[in-house]
């Protein structure tokens, strides 16, 4: 197992290098200019813009910039943002708590809701509850989150005035009052994301359960005289969850990189919002840092998923 882990980790190095070359190349070739806001402004003429570009190091050829970037990265420095002229690492850590508080919580709730729902709907297949839940789930993953988000805002923020629709990142939870404020402003973005995550995952759980319920080992368990609930809980659920574990682990990188659309709609200053803003402003170092971190997380959680798989299913051995 240890040797397997080492080998996997070593393989991930060229993988990540390849990813970084591709992202860097795409960004370098993509149109856009950090000074595009000034492009049409006669008071910031081309000479001035060129001087700023030189000072940002954008005039050097792409391979030189890449090697410099990689050199910095190996020293743990992700560079500085063109827009803020401050450290990218700082920017990311400033925003990570907001993403975790919204996307992380939503993911957690989503998983917590999806698994029991999936099990229940499979166990009571074709019951009214099953029809209802699967229909809602169908809506959940087919309606885009920018639409649900907008509907939520119009109903709960504009009409009913229950929740604010602009996330305030300055709230520090000190007492019950501020906790309540924090919960209130998180309800809508978390609900939108939970709806989506739970809907997607629930269908997987249900399908897995349905596949396992009629199998021989389940029938054996039933014929031993076990109650249906025990059959489901102890035998079928455990087997059905194996692929779900992989799925949940592979979804975890999203928790760190945020939800681009939902964060933008509710003005949550998270990583996803940072990414989209940086792409719009051609703030290459930030885009690079966020996408590369995402790549690292994906590679890492792939490994975690594989390890968990072995832990959950004794039939699988790595050597």
């Amino acid at each position, binding site marked *: 197992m240890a040797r397997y882990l080492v080998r996997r980790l070593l393989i991930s190095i060229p993988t990540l290098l390849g990813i970084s070359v591709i992202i860097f190349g795409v960004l370098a070739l993509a*149109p*856009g*200019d*950090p*000074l*595009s*806001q*000034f*492009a*049409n*402004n*006669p*008071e*910031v*003429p*081309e000479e*001035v813009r*060129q*001087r*700023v570009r*030189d*000072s940002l190091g954008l005039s050097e050829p792409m391979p030189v910039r890449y090697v410099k970037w990689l050199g910095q990265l190996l020293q743990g420095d992700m560079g*500085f*943002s*063109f*827009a*803020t*002229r*401050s450290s990218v690492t700082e*920017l990311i850590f*400033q*925003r990570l708590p907001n993403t975790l508080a919204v996307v992380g919580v939503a993911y957690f709730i989503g998983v917590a809701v999806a698994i029991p729902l999936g099990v*229940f709907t499979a166990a009571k297949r074709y019951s009214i509850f099953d029809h209802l839940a699967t229909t809602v789930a169908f809506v959940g993953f087919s309606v885009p989150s920018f639409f649900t988000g907008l509907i939520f*805002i119009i109903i709960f*923020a*504009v009409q*009913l*005035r*229950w*929740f*604010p*629709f*602009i996330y*305030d*990142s*300055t709230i520090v939870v000190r007492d019950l009052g501020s906790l*309540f404020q924090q919960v*209130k402003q998180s*309800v809508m973005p978390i609900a939108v994301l939970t709806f989506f995550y739970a809907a997607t995952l629930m269908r997987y759980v249900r399908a897995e359960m349905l596949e396992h319920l009629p199998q021989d080992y389940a029938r054996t368990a039933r014929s031993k005289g076990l*109650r249906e*609930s025990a059959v489901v809980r102890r035998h079928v659920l455990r087997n059905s969850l194996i692929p779900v574990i992989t799925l949940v682990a592979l979804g975890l990188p999203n928790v760190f990189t945020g939800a681009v659309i939902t964060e*933008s*709609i509710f*003005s949550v*200053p998270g990583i996803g*919002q*940072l990414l989209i*803003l940086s792409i*719009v*402003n051609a703030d290459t170092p930030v885009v690079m840092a966020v996408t590369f971190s995402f790549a690292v997380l994906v590679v890492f959680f792939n490994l975690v998923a594989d390890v968990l798989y072995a832990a959950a299913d004794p039939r699988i051995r790595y050597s």
Partner: protein
Amino acid sequence: MGSNRKAWRGWLAMIAIGVLVSACTQAAPVAPASSAPSAAATAAVTRGQGDELKLLYWQGPTILNPHLSQGSKDQDAARPILESLATQGPEGTPIARLAAEVPNRANGGFAADGKSITWKLKTGIKWSDGSDFTADDVAFSWQYQSNPAVAATTAAQIANVASVEAKDKSTILVTFKNATSNPYQWGVGIVSAILQKAQFSAFNGANAKDAPGNQRPIGTGPYKLKEFKSNDIVTYEMNTLYRDAAKPFFKTVQIKTVADATIAARAVCQTGDVDYGWSLNLAADQLRPFLAAGSKCDNVAAPGASTEQINLNYANPKIAGDGRSEASNPHPFFTDVNVRRAFAMAIDRKTIADQIWGGLTGDVTCNLLNQPPTIRSPNTASFDVCKYDQAAAAKLLDTAGWVRGADGIRAKGGVRMEVLYQTTVAGFRQQVQDVIKKSWESIGIKVELKAIPAGVFFSSDVANPDTSAKFFADVQEYGNGYGDPDPEIYMSAYTTENIKGRAAQWRGTNYNRYSNPAYDALFVQLTKETDLAKRKDLFVQMNDILVRDAVVIPIAAFLRPVSGKAKNLKGPIANVWEGDLWNIADWSK
């Protein structure tokens, strides 16, 4: 299974309770902002009387040093903190800030030879950290701004400034390279923001980006920084050392970033959660409902100095290879003034402007220069190119020898009248394109439309064929304008000198490749003219040439800033020349 069901019921009950609790606590909505009581309006304002002022921007401030800023959102966010010697007033005349008064010819501050101006500073001003503000800070700020190693984005303003010196603790002498009629090119407006020397002197060079002051500047303004998270939120608290003891009114100010103008409009006009929404630049029919009866906001807007315009190419974009859109290859038909005039006359600019901007975000115009009103040409209204007349346009083309072929498209000498019409991707621009395409097609012109992302269109990327500077199309539409009430630089974009093609990597502002000795002569005269009245005449003449000859077809003048303010908020005044927060010291409730 039974225990499971119980657990479920418990969960449902808890969720239901949660919803009810949050619903109840919100049952009593905040009283809607009633019309401001007149008693409060007349009552004297005292410092810190108001609690929090909440503003929404849909472009996030990323840096608070205006000299390194990347757009007006950064400059706006710096404004509660940093000041300049004077600020440009809404009428285009400066108002003193750190200066005791605005120097001019009458008070002797502006030298008769037009080569220098002397500013006297107010005395006793302190930085928010308690240290004294002196003329040294002013001179340093100019050195910093003009240092090529700093690479300030505000460097162009000072191209004609030879030096800024501190004569004594409260006297500043600004010397110009060439005699000028506009002595306020440095010192007025946020682009000449004064930084604290003590905070920035160690960063006056290539290390400018490392200055902590970029994120936390110390200023002399009415507010000082409390917290700044780029692209998210800026919070300020009142500067208790501000020179006017009665100001500022608010204890704290907050600028929050949201994703788009609709969210900002909803918060300021519908729910009234915030006091001010910056630049609600929506299409008129989207903005109108937000301002309709029952709205909680007012539109802050005034006619601006930016014009939506259609530019015609004098060079031929249809040639393949290096000669494409080079001035040496004349356009097959746009070099004929009657053809250009026909293109202009076939456009129903009034209907377009009413439909798209509706007087809320823009108004119809036939002038390139619309602000200040003193330089707005009164002559263009009578020009035939400014009147919509399809029949006359068709007749002009007939007389010019462009006759309709079998397919209805005009042609002359084997050249068909086909144009490629490009602009940026923006909902309203595609609407304008559609309307104009129909108009032109109805008089026998074949029109192909192209929409390019603004980031590409306005970039100076030499490798990209779709930039406005390359102008690889026959017609292009965009909106642009000027930030100085004296638009000399703006009008240089139509001089022969500024035609720069492939050899110069398209680094010129004359995209039209328009060359007219009469216009060039007027421009030379303008650069030398120091008499303000005569300059105004020159601007009118130059505007008239460009419009009459249909070099450029103006469509509408944008209103600025089209921001929403809560009905009970007092103070915001639309100012074309400065950012929204130019007078934030005077805002109150």
